């Protein structure tokens, strides 16, 4: 037993299984959160019928998508049609391999981690292009072409922004990047006399575009080309695309957090006296608040099973809050907490942007990419490099 546990492959395999098993569920709940948050911006309620406050909606959606008839259009290139969503999902999930969830919880710490993630997200777009192409539908084709063009244009500023950050971090390993930020005592986003804020903003903007989110959601602009590359997809294949999209959002936010916002570090990681308020009191208060909210929800819902679910949720939240109070457990989970917290804030930003802005037009998208983002990212690379040189 001891031997097995000490085998260096055991923990990564367990972590991989956990991620693959759990991520679809997590993605489902990100979708639910997106629908709820979006509804909030739009003065409505969002899903409310399945479970208390729509809490079981992701499960209902999953069951629906699994049971739906799987249609492959007669004129489609069925093999590519079949494989494209798999490719997308595969690459999106693979990127999790180097994601540093915390100082302890990660699958692998590769010395080229960041390159690996960028490579995977680039291949992922191939899935969209192939899916759109093989559907043999004009709308899908237009969507595929759009996503190809968009990927080419926005990979560049994204890459430049990352390169700028790497100059500061001086390593390609994801864990290493976080470690550098701990050593320097400042998140990369704010380092270099605040000059790094520019590539940070560029990364977020290009990231929104890279994940095909509004206002850059041209490949699936529903008011123009119906659903873009996945117009012809239904059932589980559609669900795979959905999963891939949310996985890549999560990955991208994770990269942004790791590279620019200190990864699993708490804010002001080097300021000792903030240790207790930020690492203990803050999470406890947060989960108590959520638990309290669920508690109020328990009173409000009327049906017995809904009351039950809400009560379980309340207890769960209180339990998590209690866990943070135990010092030994706290050390284990606090990194994970901060990583997720930051990622969720970024995801919220993505949803907020989606809920507010109109969509770019194709030529404007190219304009923004080539005429603004790329020159600015190159400029910021040079300026940051020079400043780094002078100050080191």
């Amino acid at each position, binding site marked *: 037993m001891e031997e097995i546990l000490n085998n260096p492959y055991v923990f990564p395999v367990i972590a991989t299984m956990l991620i693959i098993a759990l991520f679809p569920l997590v993605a489902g709940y990100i979708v639910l959160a997106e629908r709820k948050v979006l509804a*909030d911006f739009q*003065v*409505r309620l969002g899903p409310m019928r399945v479970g208390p406050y729509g809490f079981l909606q992701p499960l209902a959606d999953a069951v629906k998508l699994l049971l739906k008839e799987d249609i492959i259009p007669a004129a489609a290139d069925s093999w590519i049609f079949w494989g494209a969503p798999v490719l997308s999902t595969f690459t999106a999930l693979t990127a999790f391999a180097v994601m540093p969830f915390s100082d302890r919880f990660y699958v692998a710490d590769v010395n080229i981690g960041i390159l690996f993630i960028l490579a995977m997200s680039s291949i992922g777009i191939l899935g969209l292009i192939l899916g759109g192409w093989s559907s043999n539908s004009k709308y899908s084709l237009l969507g595929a072409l759009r996503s190809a063009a968009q990927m080419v244009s926005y990979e560049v500023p994204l890459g430049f922004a990352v390169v700028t950050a790497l100059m500061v971090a001086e390593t390609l390993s994801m864990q290493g990047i976080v470690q550098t930020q701990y050593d320097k005592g400042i998140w990369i986003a704010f380092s270099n006399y605040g000059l790094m804020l520019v590539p940070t903003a560029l990364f977020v903007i290009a990231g929104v575009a890279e994940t095909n989110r509004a206002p850059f959601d041209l490949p699936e602009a529903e008011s123009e080309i119906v659903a873009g590359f996945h117009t012809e997809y239904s059932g589980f294949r559609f669900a795979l695309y959905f999963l891939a999209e949310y996985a890549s959002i999560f990955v991208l936010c994770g990269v942004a957090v790791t590279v620019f916002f200190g990864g699993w570090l708490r804010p002001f990681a080097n300021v000792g006296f903030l240790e207790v308020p930020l690492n203990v009191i803050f999470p406890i208060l947060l989960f108590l608040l959520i638990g309290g909210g669920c508690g109020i929800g328990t009173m409000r819902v009327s049906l017995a099973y809904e009351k039950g679910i809400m009560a379980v949720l309340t207890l769960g939240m209180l339990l998590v809050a209690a866990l943070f109070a135990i010092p030994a457990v706290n050390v284990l989970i606090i990194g994970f907490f901060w990583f997720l917290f930051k990622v969720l804030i970024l995801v919220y930003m993505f949803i907020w942007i989606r809920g*507010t802005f109109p969509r770019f037009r194709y030529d404007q998208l190219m304009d923004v990419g080539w005429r603004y983002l790329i020159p600015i990212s190159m400029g910021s690379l040079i300026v940051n490099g020079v400043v780094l040189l002078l100050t080191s």
Partner: protein
Amino acid sequence: MKQFLKTIFLVDLLQGLWVTFRNQKPSLIYTEQYPKERPSVAERYRGAPRLNVHPDTDETLCIACNLCALACPEELIVVTAERNEETRRKELTMFTYDTSRCMFCGLCEDACPVDALELTQDFELASYTREGAVWDRQMLEEGPLPTEYKH
């Protein structure tokens, strides 16, 4: 210059973000959770038709004058009557109202000289069959059964 700074710092975009952000207040939620919450329907609402009966005697108020049938643009009201030899009055025998073709324009209601036919606030008119949408006299007098929802 001010315009330029505004452009650089994306003021127009931030302004939009602020609008959506401040609309998040839970008190601003406008959704009505039908059927959990019943909408309050205005007094003059033109919904399900009803054939009024005299509150005390339960006799119909309809005098079988057929004006509603004539007023109806869709001709979906059929009134039949029989002359009662004793009272020498025309008495209503049958009254059917096809809600499936009704557009709730209210012309029949306006035409009724005795306020017998009325469009009520009831708006749940669905039925499982086409025949179910054709209401006979009994249905018109008693009104549709209140809908119960389980979920």
